[in-house]
């Protein structure tokens, strides 16, 4: 079957099997391998992308259900930002918040959405907002440090976090 959708601002028309997930379409049909398949059951969040502006786990979304959708992946998150890096990506680099890195694309997507929707969230609330993402290195302290840094910058008039 064929699905037409926008991925990172580009119109795409993709041939795929009806049982393929959005994650599989992104990784294997479009070569966008930033989104990862961790659990494949919606528990780990490593495959988080935006569909029509909202973060979802792409391993539990059928590609066929994305007809006409606007999809943003980690590869497109920084579009329009200096050096192509979203403020959350920059904060992760500066904080050294990445260990093995497998969970990070999903966490950055979830965090970018959390900061935009709840710019006044404290650390506890930020924890809840990224509760759909697991880090198997258990490196949560620096991950939350980075998210707090990005949130503090966004609040003090830094670039807004909207690239959806």
């Amino acid at each position, binding site marked *: 079957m064929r699905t037409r959708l926008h991925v990172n601002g580009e119109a795409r028309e993709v041939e795929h099997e*009806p*049982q393929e997930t959005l994650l599989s379409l992104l990784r294997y049909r479009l070569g966008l391998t930033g989104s990862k398949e961790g659990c494949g*059951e919606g528990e780990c969040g490593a495959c988080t992308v935006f569909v029509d502006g909202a*973060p979802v786990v792409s391993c*539990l*979304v*059928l590609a066929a259900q994305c*007809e006409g959708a606007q999809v943003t992946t980690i590869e497109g998150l920084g579009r329009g930002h200096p050096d192509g890096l979203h403020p959350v990506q920059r904060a992760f680099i500066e904080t050294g918040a990445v260990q093995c890195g497998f969970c990070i694309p999903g966490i950055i997507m979830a965090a970018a959405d959390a900061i935009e929707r709840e710019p006044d969230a404290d650390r506890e609330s930020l924890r809840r907002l990224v*509760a*759909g993402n697991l880090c198997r290195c258990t490196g949560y302290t620096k991950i939350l440090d980075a998210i707090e840094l990005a949130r503090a910058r966004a609040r003090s008039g830094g670039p807004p976090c909207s690239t959806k």
Partner: protein
Amino acid sequence: MRSFAYLRAESFPAASAALETPESLPKAAGTDLLDLLKERVVEPAALVDLSRIERAQSDPGVLSALATLAELAEDEGIRRDFPALHAAARQAATPQIRNRGTLGGNLCQVSRCPYLRRAGASCFKRDGSPCGALLPGGFDRTHAIFDVGPCACAHPSSLAPALIALGARVRLVRGEERRVLALEELYAPPAPGRLGDVALRPGELVEAVLLEASPRSRNSVYLEMRERESFDFALVSVAAAVELREGRVRSVRVACGAVAPRPRRMREVEAALRGRPLDAESIAGAADAARVAARPLRSNGFKATILHRLCVRALEELRQ
């Protein structure tokens, strides 16, 4: 995952007609269904996509079955008039799944029982074979503590107990036919071939949930206990709605999730409260009534203790 035909429905009657063919299943967001497909627990010949169905005009008392959990959690009217529903929607799953998962899907989801969810394991609901949890040495820690028959599944929906406590009804659609049921009547006892425990006819779908705001619905609460603070299903959930008049309980509804194969109305708790002042003594008696009625399995007696504590906490919150 086995391949299937994919059909996009434009309306509930059209979806319903497409679902009359055997071996077809409905899919809204399908976050639960996709897991079951990947595990080959279900292998439908066709999936009927409900997600593009135009939603009827919004009426505050009519919630579309296609509303996402995130939409319910963010709705100010729900927060004000139905706080139990607000709390249940806000705590369900993860932010990503709440953005996708729907009200109808939450109500019709399949139990988390590991025997049911693993193709090849012994499961009464999948094929009539003995319930794995009830076999010698079976894992029954997260299973039911009420109404265990040939299946020991615990019902996973968190929205169902909240909505039952709120006195919700569901509107079902099959072709051009519609019928309305009390939500608790949507659920049926475990039966082979009926994974979702809902008494829907072939092709029938949940179209909407109907709610009426009242002093009782505004004084409602939902609490759940999970093994993990973040993403997890409830071990026990309790929802209660109480209307007080002159200090006494004029009307009350209490329902629990994850304690029985179906969401369970807690009539013994309600009976212990009706007509009495809502005070420490009546609350203790009501919570005891819940615990005494429970019939735990070998290794889940702790769920009866959690149920007791959650009943106390929930009712304390409603004292005003």
